[in-house]
């Protein structure tokens, strides 16, 4: 059975079990590997993608539930905020092992797209669902503030 949705702006039909979690459809059927598997139960955020601009955990969302909707993955990031986030991540050398960072960048981008000047509390609220076992949290926080500044300029 085929499910059609917009993946990174392109209308995409994926022939797969409609109950397959979106994460595995993106990774194994569409072949986009930037989105990562971390827990399978929406506890870690490694699989974060945007559904119509909102950050969601693709490991607990079925493929059929996104029919006709817009999914953005790390490979499809385009916005000014996204570019500012990625540049700040590189500038502040945020990643260590890097495995969670696609999810972190997706969550941070979604935050900045709706809040151009997040406070530390806003960052806590938006980012606490994304675990980083390397504990790059201080740099993630600093990079979000830096990206907010540069996206404004």
């Amino acid at each position: 059975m085929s499910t059609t949705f917009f993946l990174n702006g392109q209308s995409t039909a994926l022939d797969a079990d409609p109950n397959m979690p979106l994460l595995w459809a993106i990774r194994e059927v569409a072949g986009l590997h930037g989105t990562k598997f971390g827990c399978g139960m929406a506890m870690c955020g490694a699989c974060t993608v945007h559904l119509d601009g909102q950050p969601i955990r693709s490991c607990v969302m079925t493929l059929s539930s996104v029919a006709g909707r817009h999914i953005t993955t790390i490979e499809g990031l385009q916005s000014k905020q996204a570019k500012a986030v990625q540049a700040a991540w590189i500038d502040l050398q945020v990643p260590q092992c890097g495995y969670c960072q696609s999810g972190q960048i997706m969550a941070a981008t979604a935050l900045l797209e709706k809040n151009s000047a997040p406070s530390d509390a806003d960052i806590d609220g938006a980012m606490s669902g994304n675990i980083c076992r390397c504990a790059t949290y201080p740099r993630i926080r600093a990079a979000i503030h830096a990206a907010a500044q540069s996206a404004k300029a």
Partner: protein
Amino acid sequence: MSNDIASARKIERRTFLKGAGAATITALTIGFELSGPRRAQALAAAAPGNSPPFAPNAFVRIGADNSITIIAKHIEMGQGSYTGLATILADELDADWAQVRVESAPADATRYANLVFGKLQGTGGSSSIANSWPQLRDAGAKARAMLLTAAASEWHVPVGELTVDKSVISHAASKRQATFGSLVKKAAALPVPDTVRLKDPKDFKLIGGRPPRVDVAAKCDGTAQFTIDVEMPGMLVALLKRSPLFGGKVKSFDGAAAMQVPGVVKIVQVPGGVAVVAKSFWAAKQGRDALKVDWDDSSAEKRSSAAMMDEYRRLADQPALPARKEGDAKKAIGDAARKISAGYEFPYLAHAPMEPLAAVVKLDAKTCEIWTGDQFQTMDQMNAAHAAGLDPGQVSIHTLYAGGSFGRRANTISDYVVEAVSIAKAFGADGTPIKLQWTREDDIRGGLYRPMYFHKLEAGLNAQNELVGWHHVIVGQSIMAGTIFAAGMKDGIDSTSVEGAANIAYAIPNIAVDLSTAKAGVPVLWWRVVGSSHTTFAVEAFIDEVAHAAGADPYTFRRKLLEHEPRMKAVLELAADKAGWTSGPLPKGRGRGIAVCEAFNSFVAQVAEVSVDDAGRVKVDRVVCAVDCGTAVNPDIIKAQMEGGIGFGLGAALYGAITLKDGRVEQSNFNDYRVLRMNEAPKVEVYIVPSTEKPTGVGEPGVAPVGPAVANAVFAATGKRVYAFPFVKNEIARS
């Protein structure tokens, strides 16, 4: 001319970043002193394909295209090893950092052994930079010397008149310049010098600077490749159903329902359980959910961790083996004016790296090829060969980026690698690539935990409030017993059980440190900072209690006992100074605590500031960290490792515990195995002690002091001590 070089570099950088093929790079490999026909000749000679790369040793390869490939014998699992290793070699080589790329070494202990481990290739003990420092400096310097000799002979000038900067050799008098790439053919024909002069540290250009990490760009756009991302034609995905009890074995299984799941290809029994091999993860997962296995639990561990801790407490009062003995601690404490005692409980801990373990194996009758975030190549090669029925030389390993490890991947049984090989063998060893994928539940329940421990401490103060006796008893499972490392145990003492305790630096006239090794059927393993993950807590929490009993400030009490330990004392002073220790107490409900340790030859001190609310909830507001790790190869990565180590240690201290109920692990995922999150992460400040000593470890030492620093801060805020991990087990309501 300099414009040529600049524009060439720009193109090189761009092509390097794109990972483009050779064609576009050919034009860059020119000797800049040439023009006309000779230039064309040089171009042809330098074209990739015409000239093999210059590879004077096992660690560097310079292409005619000016690419500099540094071969990393250590895994990149987040600790920054690729960048650090490349920095050392590139500095001695005087390489242009923009041209440097890093690739992982194959499994080959003859060339790539960790010199700390002897003849084993592997990463651990925070030793990557420390053991590679002389080796890679030598490798870089020799390559540079050969390129210089090549240029000198080409230009008929003395080597002493040449200078090198950013991969370009210059002869000022004749205004000639040549890139490394243009000299590779000539350099490759030269003998490797026996000895070479290393740089004076004042001439370092990259070491001590901030060359960007070689892995960061790919980790910010989703292109960094981990094991889970490996795909190849015909590849299948396997999930393994394992015994819910440690030591359980398959009695029988019924795979009928699993085979009904679309995409499931085969069910195979292996020593570790029953595997479902399918065309996708989702099919394998559903297949495993439908698989019925009957287990033989006759030799499995069926105890609860609480009962085991009760036994450990009893063992702490029984005779134990001495790990250190100076003077007569028992008598000194018995005769002391005041006696202080405490017991500390530490639970099992899972490593829980972000990337669930995975390995891809391609096995046929004669070869076994493995792709994984491999931390222990030699061990994995031997164990994989054994499982496959091949010789180690028939096993090749592609070491990929690892999404964290914290010790988990460096295990002597090669658990997940052997599982993957066994599945490929049971599948038919027909060359089908099979990816074994663990889930988070497999990881949390998969064993190889940081062991559970009980520590009992007693100390005596004389009438002048001086610490005269110290007796420390440690009870827990041995990590090394029964492994290849058991040979390294002396007199029954597993050094990983007592490090950080047996070697405490405080000047105490009578010291006894004893070890009682308990047996349990729970597989255990080193966990980031190993012994010091529990010993530093026991030592630093207890010395704080002793200081309090002596009526002394906990910082000045420690400092006085470290008069003869200049490096340890220096980090303690630096952390206290930067944290404003002497600026007076914090407001009500807040507190400051300090702790210091030596681990993997580095010295770390931390001051934690905490707030405790009326419900007893602890919030760590700030951690100030001072580290002395010898020469700081890459200060920014050292800072990152301290920040990360603090977060990792703090999460475990506050929330981390694996518990067993009748042998079954009670946790399963991040919902019940809590780790630190953004809203719980403190502000971290890191200060590095300037040093010209040899570089020492940074991946692990930052983990050790944070737990006791926070516990001591909680005491300062509430008057209550923490005696059991995790903190959430303790009642810390503010009095």
